[in-house]
């Protein structure tokens, strides 16, 4: 399994796009930090600037989470499906390894890469903002952990779909589910404020099938300074219609569900691939 994981990690890291991602990340961090410095300097008093910076960090976090989700799907969808399509598995699977070890190895290799990238790029961005403006969100490590979990959920979904579907279909379907989860999160918040139980239940079910939006909201909560939470209390439940403002972190029950979701989705992928003729 480790041989498969190591090879999978090397393959993804050795592609030309790895350099493009590295350069793109460096440019994004540089430009956003420059923007923070300029905007911060133009707002007085300092307390108002802190509010602006906190809001911008959440928007940046959202952009980063979307890029991570797309990137994770892009990396994971062809990890197995692409090797089946290209015929590489014909030489690998007759070797004395189980199909389960092959799927886990692929998951482990791609997950390690995506998680490492998310942590390094996220930490770099937050550090650059901290050093240049002095602003740091209240729970930066928790926020990064939620973002990594969201990316890994996308990765697991796309990889698992790829055990049965072609790579392109797996990637598109995973991204469609990600979008559906995000929309369900907004629809659910609106339904809650309007007291529409049917819509609320439906969106809760979607959130359980695709937990990425709830994980994103966990990241938002970890990025929100105390003044944002106080403001939401003042506004009442209407504030949670906004996907960039969250009053409470995901519940423990939801986090347990998410852990089970990972096991189940990967398990379905393993079961699919074990039965598949290649």
């Amino acid at each position, binding site marked *: 399994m480790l*041989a498969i994981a190591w090879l999978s990690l090397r*393959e993804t890291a050795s592609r030309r796009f790895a350099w493009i991602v590295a350069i793109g990340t460096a440019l994004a961090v540089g430009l956003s930090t420059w923007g923070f410095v300029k905007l911060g300097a133009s707002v007085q008093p300092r307390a108002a600037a802190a509010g602006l910076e906190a809001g911008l960090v959440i928007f940046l976090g959202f952009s980063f989470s979307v890029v991570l989700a797309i990137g994770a799907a892009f990396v994971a969808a062809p990890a197995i499906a692409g090797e089946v399509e290209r015929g*590489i598995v*014909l*030489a690998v699977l*007759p*070797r*004395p390894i189980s199909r389960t070890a092959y799927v886990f190895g692929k998951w482990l290799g791609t997950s390690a890469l995506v998680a490492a990238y998310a942590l390094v790029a996220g930490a770099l961005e937050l550090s650059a903002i901290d050093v240049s403006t002095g602003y740091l969100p209240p729970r930066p490590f928790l926020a990064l952990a939620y973002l990594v979990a969201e990316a890994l959920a996308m990765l697991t979904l796309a990889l698992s779909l790829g055990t049965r579907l072609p790579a392109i279909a797996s990637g598109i379907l995973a991204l469609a589910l990600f979008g559906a989860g995000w929309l369900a999160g907004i629809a659910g918040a609106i339904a809650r404020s309007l007291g529409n139980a049917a819509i609320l239940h439906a969106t809760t079910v979607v959130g359980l099938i695709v937990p990425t939006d709830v994980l994103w909201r966990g990241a938002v909560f970890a990025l929100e300074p105390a003044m944002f939470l106080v403001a939401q209390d003042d506004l009442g439940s209407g504030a949670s219609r906004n996907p960039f403002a969250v009053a409470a972190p995901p519940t423990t029950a939801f986090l347990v569900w998410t852990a089970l979701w990972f096991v189940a989705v990967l398990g379905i992928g393993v079961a699919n691939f074990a039965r598949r003729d290649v």
Partner: protein
Amino acid sequence: MSGSPPAAIETAALAKRFGAKAALHDLTLTVPRGEIFGFLGPNGAGKTTAVKLLLGLARPTSGTATVLGAPLGDRETRRKIGYLPELFRYQEWLPAREVLAFHARLIGIPHARRKAAIADALDGVGLGDRRGDLVGTFSKGMQQRLGLAIALLGEPDLVFLDEPTSALDPVGRHDVRAIIEGLAARGAAVFLNSHLLTEVERVCRRVAVVDRGAVVAQGSIDQMLGTRSIVRLRVDGLGARGRAVLERFGTVTQDGAWYAIDGARDADVPDLVAALVGADVRIHAVESTRATLEERFLQLLVPADGVARDRVA
């Protein structure tokens, strides 16, 4: 248990269906250990499906089979099996030696022996001086040689080669023949899927012919070709008398100036020549041959009207 080791491959009524279509419906064959076995058949006959079933890449719908004495897909047994797929693709972003290192790790070749095993495998297929080059820079033929090196890694007891010379030039084909004979010499069994019947005839001791998902004939090359022999002559001035002479010795077919007498034996040649000279026929050349595997193959798969059967099941 008897003392003799089990056959390299033994199958009984092995079948594979894809929905309503039967890719293989009755594969019954035995491949003894240490033998080079030719597996022949037209396109779509089920050859590659059979190989995939035997390697555990696909699961049979029914029937039974053992490979090296173990049930299909047995993980430990797979350590002793090498495979060159017909559609070979390897990690093009890795150097050749690292692709082999990956396979060496999967097979479980001890770390201390890996480097030597990889070097031997690459040298054996003529890629020794390209070991550090990326697979993506290799020609199709070189990639097939690499596939052969991967199949031979770890001294397997059974090697499946699916059209192993499809991308190779004549020199490459000669090399592959030598490699296959070398495998048999050290006691490994080789299961050779090939369309190149002259090659199969040259290296294989036994063959099976599969058509429409079932084995239609199998046995040693000698058994397959039988004692049937043919005498070919290039003559002129044959005439009715000469023709009658030829027909006394067997069934006559004409191809330009050449006449083939199916059924005439080597021992008949002096009498045949004497009779033809007596009938004022001028003889330019005479050769006595056995039926080729290709002729036998066509005889099995093409009916008397000469039109190949519809291959769509």
